């Protein structure tokens, strides 16, 4: 991981070249004492996750009146089936996917276009004003505007997953424009000029030259957008009027009362809501981690 966790080249190009895998004062001896301490600490994460999995794989009789930490044997797969049917999981999955796709695509396209236009026209005060105007949203959290916003979304017929996706784009706009514009400033303008010389229009320049160069920062923005949209509970709960069109976290909330009779089905349902991001993370952790590091340094 030491080589995978990188400081982005854009943020610290000088340091990059000097960096070695990691300073080890003792000259490479493994610190076993520390390893044991860290391993014990990691139980604070492993135990709750084990608990969730164990609970989901037990029958109510196996849970009994115990702590819930006993090993699930024989494995009881039926909870997943029951949870799947009870909460109409496929529909909730589809809704979560819809919101997330709108947010990821929208955040990357809208903020990269705006940031590019702003950076390349920085000489005009109109674009500088636009930049600072959009940055105002950094200081507006959702609870502050929630009350009028819910009414507004209902009035224009966007009290559904589409509206939630649009709001995710809008609330992240400031931060994303900040990330993109910092990155675009590091791209030499000559590349675009030579493309124009060859007869590219502004749109073609964006599509063929700029967008491919933006891939690393677009990946960062996309990862943030994916995690935030998929896990968001506050906005879909308040904006989406029809409970049938709710996303996965809200479905967990809505079914909480019915779950109290059978905790094992509840945990199967929790696990189905947790697994997608966890699996994506385990597959793509290198990019998730470097993406978040890049985001934090900007």
């Amino acid at each position, binding site marked *: 991981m030491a080589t995978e966790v990188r400081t982005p080249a854009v943020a610290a190009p000088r340091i990059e070249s000097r960096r070695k895998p990691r300073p080890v004062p003792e000259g490479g001896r493994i610190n076993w004492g520390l390893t044991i301490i860290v391993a014990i600490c990691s139980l604070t*994460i492993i135990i709750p996750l084990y608990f969730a999995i164990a609970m989901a794989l037990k029958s109510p009789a196996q849970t009994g009146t115990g702590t819930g930490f006993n090993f699930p044997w024989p494995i009881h797969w039926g909870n997943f089936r029951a949870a799947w049917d009870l909460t109409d999981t496929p529909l909730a999955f589809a809704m979560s996917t819809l919101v997330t796709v709108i947010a990821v695509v929208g955040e990357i396209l809208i903020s990269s276009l705006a940031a590019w236009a702003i950076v390349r026209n920085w000489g005009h005060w109109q674009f500088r004003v636009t930049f600072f*105007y959009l940055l105002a949203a950094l200081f507006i959290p959702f609870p*502050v505007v929630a009350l*009028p916003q819910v009414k*507004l979304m209902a009035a224009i017929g966007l009290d559904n997953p589409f509206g939630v996706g649009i709001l995710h784009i809008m609330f992240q706009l400031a931060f994303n424009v900040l990330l993109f514009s910092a990155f675009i400033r590091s791209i030499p303008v000559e590349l675009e000029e030579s493309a124009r010389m060859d007869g590219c229009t502004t749109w073609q320049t964006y599509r063929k030259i700029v967008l491919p160069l933006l891939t690393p920062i677009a990946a960062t923005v996309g990862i943030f957008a994916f995690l935030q949209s998929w896990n968001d509970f506050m906005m879909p709960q308040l904006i989406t009027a029809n409970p049938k069109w709710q996303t996965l976290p809200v479905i967990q909330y809505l079914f909480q009362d019915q779950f109290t009779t059978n905790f094992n089905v509840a945990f199967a349902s929790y696990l189905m809501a947790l697994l997608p991001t966890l699996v994506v993370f385990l597959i793509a952790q290198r990019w998730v981690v470097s993406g978040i590091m890049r985001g934090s340094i900007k």
Partner: protein
Amino acid sequence: MTATALPSQRTETAARSRRGALGKVKKLFFPVAPAYLLMVIPAIILFTFFIIYPTIQGMFWSLTNYVGYGTWHFVGLANYQAAFSDPTIRDSYGFTLLFAVVACIVTNVTALALALALNAKIKWRTGLRTVFFMPMVISGLVISYVFTFILSTSVPIIASAIHFAPLETSILANQHTAWLGIVLVASWVAIPGAIIIFLAGLVSIPTEVYEAASIDGASAWKQFQRMTFPLLFPFFVINTILTFKSFLNVYDVVVGLTNGGPGTATTSVAMEIFSGFFNGDYAYQMANAVIFFAITMFFAVFQLGVMRRRGGVL
């Protein structure tokens, strides 16, 4: 030749004089190629409509007695006066600020310690890092439900088995300790993000600094105190800003663990504002939202000031 040239010249001058008046307007609002404007203007319009317009609307309604429908009239600052003397609102600020400060300290101290450990020469470093990063991608609400069961069912059973009195009843059911459960889970979710930012800072410290310090005979603690911590300070500030801001808006974890209870002991400001959808408190909670906005702004500006003075990264 002249006969054809003249009319075309005339239309050109006409066009130029027309552009004289329009040109100034055009130059003011559309100084560059239309394609650039098409990239920016839709973003500005959508942003204004979906974010700025409701913000201003909220500020406007906060000065009225609007209940969400029907007629209304201006009441001046009456909502604000009432909000300042409302014990429910005051309690929600008390809980939220206490929670945000404690959770912020817990998150940053733990994350710094873990980042230092995960950056040291330990066995299975890659695997252990993966484990510690996992909570970052988990939904706060769903993991809160998992912890609700652990804290209110499993822990009391274990505690009574070993006769440890303080935990024999659920800490979430006690109005004096419920907030500690929220600190625990909110920090659990927030720590991985903070660890990553600290790791980003640690790898940017050049090795030579440590070599020089070792040669000069600096102890591990002295090295941390005099070098690591000062060099990490900008990352410490970023972490504080990011975590504090998100803790101020705490909602998911509270809904999942206590739903504001017992009583109203753990009702956060966000939950209190959302109660404006019921009981005809619409305009009243809008005033609360404006107060909350002012407090958020105060902390943001304060933290940005600290960051700039310390030569931060932004």
